[in-house]
């Protein structure tokens, strides 16, 4: 998978196609994070094949629904359990992210894994994503924002879209008290 743009959350339900021997087959539901519905279906089969003995050619997707975020204006802490392949082995991880939506947090996770561990999207498997209440977060970089009186300046202002000239006789001003 290529984690293109903002990932979306999909609820994919599939089953093995019924045969003469097996007239009713159980339904399997998965929570998939993918850039679009086509990739979501593909990821569904990728995981199903690893867990059960049927694949896209012997099964069918019964339903695929995009799940929109329930509270897109509320800041939430997300704990993400994942498994990824590094250059020398495969490891489990628990990571935490703060975002307004689940899919936003998972997108951040893919970007973060790429940055910190050079892990490509195809080698990452999201095992579980849960909203975590502030008290139960484990990471200090998330806990530092759990402060009702949070207050900090923006000391050095660089890297923004600039209207500054390309050539100038003076250095730009980076502090705005």
């Amino acid at each position, binding site marked *: 998978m290529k984690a293109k743009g903002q990932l979306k959350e999909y609820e994919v339900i599939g089953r093995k196609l019924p045969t003469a021997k097996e007239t009713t087959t159980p339904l399997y539901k998965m929570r998939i994070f993918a850039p679009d519905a086509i990739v979501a279906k593909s990821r569904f089969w990728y995981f199903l094949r690893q867990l059960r003995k049927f694949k896209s050619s012997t099964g069918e997707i019964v339903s695929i629904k995009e799940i929109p975020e329930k509270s897109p*204006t*509320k*800041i939430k802490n997300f704990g993400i359990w994942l498994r990824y392949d590094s250059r020398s082995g495969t490891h489990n991880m628990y990571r935490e*992210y*703060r*975002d*307004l939506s689940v899919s936003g947090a998972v997108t951040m996770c893919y970007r973060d894994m790429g940055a910190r561990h050079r892990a490509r999207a195809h080698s990452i498997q999201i095992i579980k994503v849960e909203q975590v209440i502030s008290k139960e977060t484990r990471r200090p*970089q998330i806990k530092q*924002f759990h402060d*009702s*009186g*949070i*207050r*900090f*300046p*923006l*000391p050095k202002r660089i*890297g*923004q*879209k600039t209207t500054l000239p390309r050539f100038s006789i003076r250095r730009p001003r980076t*502090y*705005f*008290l």
Partner: protein
Amino acid sequence: MPFQRFVEPGRVAYIAEGIHSGKLCTIVDVIDQTRALVDGPESGVPRTAVRFKQMHLTKFKFPLTYTSPTRIVRKSWKEAQISEKWAESSWAHKIDARKRRSELTDFDRFKLGRARQTRNRIITRVYQKLKTKAARSGRTFPARKRSKKTANPKNAAAKAAAKGKGKK
């Protein structure tokens, strides 16, 4: 140099980049190192995440509890009269002037040039009058001021010693 503008709930910020660029908003809460949850019910900004690099902090602030709902933000904004205070500020005037200047037609620029010329000619005429008046009365340059510096005690002592030596 202590900082005066902080990222805090209730701080009014000017969004400089993105889809809501040019509008004012209030910081309601901090999401993470790079983003804040902002809201601008009176200025047409929905409750969204905006990156710190996209916003410029203003000097305006009103008391607001973190994660307050939009109606409380609107009420506090109106009570603090932020829209009015912003419209009076020189920052807003400068934005206005820049916008108007960019919308000038060629005819407007001609009119502006002529107006500047008229004004500058009046100034030059008054200046020349003052200059000739000063030249005729010998006051082109201001009178030389005698230095009223108090004597340095070391120098004064050295001078006194030299004077005493000289006398001897």
